[in-house]
């Protein structure tokens, strides 16, 4: 984690809180600001867990709708961003479980048609394959750590545990990823 990243978080704290207060006071535009500011981050979390851009886009809309309706429940004990990430992680894991059942049914009929997983150009195909085999909770931790580059404290708040538990979970997720990655390489 870079120092500049942490400073930007600290600087954003007050701004987010102000936007939250303005939205709760009735200013709809304040929520639009929060939406624009965190869309990419929330999309990254959803995409990392769901492994599909379309599903991730739908999940992001769902997450912001939840936040829009329930922002009054935000208790200000944590930063708005980590509260938002927590909603995003939980919602994405929930969607991932639903999609897993849906995909099992689709596999039987579309196994031959769906042969090209969504991958960026020049990417290591093994990573996508391994991520698909991991549990959504492990994908969430790896996404938050490697792709969203959150520190352990932020990860702990985002998944709803303490720092030590987050560290242990991250270690195990990383080990599982490594084991599967080596299997894919053989």
């Amino acid at each position, binding site marked *: 984690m870079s120092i500049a990243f942490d400073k930007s978080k600290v600087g954003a704290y007050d701004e987010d809180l102000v936007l939250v207060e303005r939205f709760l006071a009735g200013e709809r535009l304040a929520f639009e600001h929060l939406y624009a500011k965190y869309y990419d981050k929330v999309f990254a979390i959803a995409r990392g867990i769901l492994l599909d851009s379309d599903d991730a886009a739908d999940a992001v809309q769902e997450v912001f709708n939840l936040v829009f309706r329930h922002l009054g429940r935000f208790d200000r004990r944590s930063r708005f961003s980590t509260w938002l990430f927590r909603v995003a992680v939980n919602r994405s894991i929930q969607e991932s479980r639903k999609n897993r059942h849906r995909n099992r049914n689709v596999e039987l009929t579309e196994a031959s048609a769906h042969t090209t997983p969504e991958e960026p150009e020049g990417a290591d195909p093994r990573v*996508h394959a391994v991520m698909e085999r991991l549990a959504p909770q492990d994908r969430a931790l790896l996404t938050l750590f490697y792709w969203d580059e959150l520190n352990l404290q932020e990860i702990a708040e985002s998944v709803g545990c303490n720092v030590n538990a987050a560290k242990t979970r991250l270690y195990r997720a990383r080990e599982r990823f490594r084991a599967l990655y080596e299997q894919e390489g053989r």
Partner: protein
Amino acid sequence: MRGVPPEVDQLMWAVSENPDPGAIAEFGERYPQLRAELMHRVNMVRSLRNEVKPGLQRRQELPRFQPREVASMPNPRGLVLAGGLALAALAAASYTAYSMLKPAPHRAPISLLPREDQSQAPIVPPVRYQNPPTVSPPPKEAIRQPERAVEVDKVPAYLRPRDVAVKDENLTTALAMITEGTGIKLVIGPGFVDQKVSVDYRSKTTAEILKDLADQYAFSVFDEGNGTYLVLPVPDRTAPPSGISKVDTSATK
């Protein structure tokens, strides 16, 4: 990883996630046997970061946020209750329709005439009575008459002809055997003199038998109502042809 101390494993992960060339070289010098594993992890972490990160970027411009109106969902418990009631109503309607459409069951006509075997009086062992002697109706098990015949037969039991044969028994015992199965309860009045009797009646009603016995042994039978008959040791000169007088309760009121 197996065979690698945890602290070295942690260090290897830390170097892999921050692949500084100096740190990689230093680790390789300290743990040359783990150099290949370190490079493997460095490449894996790099792949992990690089592979998906470009894919994480949204492919179009920021979509417009459209807050969705939450449709008010009906209470699931209410739905279950309504469903249960609907099912119950459907079941009741089906049963009613089925019952109305089903043809009435065929029943054989019921004979109102008493059968031969029903007119036979059962043989009951003699009963010894203490003073004052009272006669109670015999147990129901002793009277073997089909229930259906009892329901349809409107003729009083004491008016049905029957056969009674008693040999060398006390008069009270004979009276008990005569009235059993007829619904008559005999109450023997004070001063009644018991004696040995032998009777043999064929196709006689209970009333006729009682009248005949009353004439022979000088006693009277009075109907007190509710199926109770009082036997008094005096001859009744005003007895009706049936042999059983009605007790006149109007004088006592």
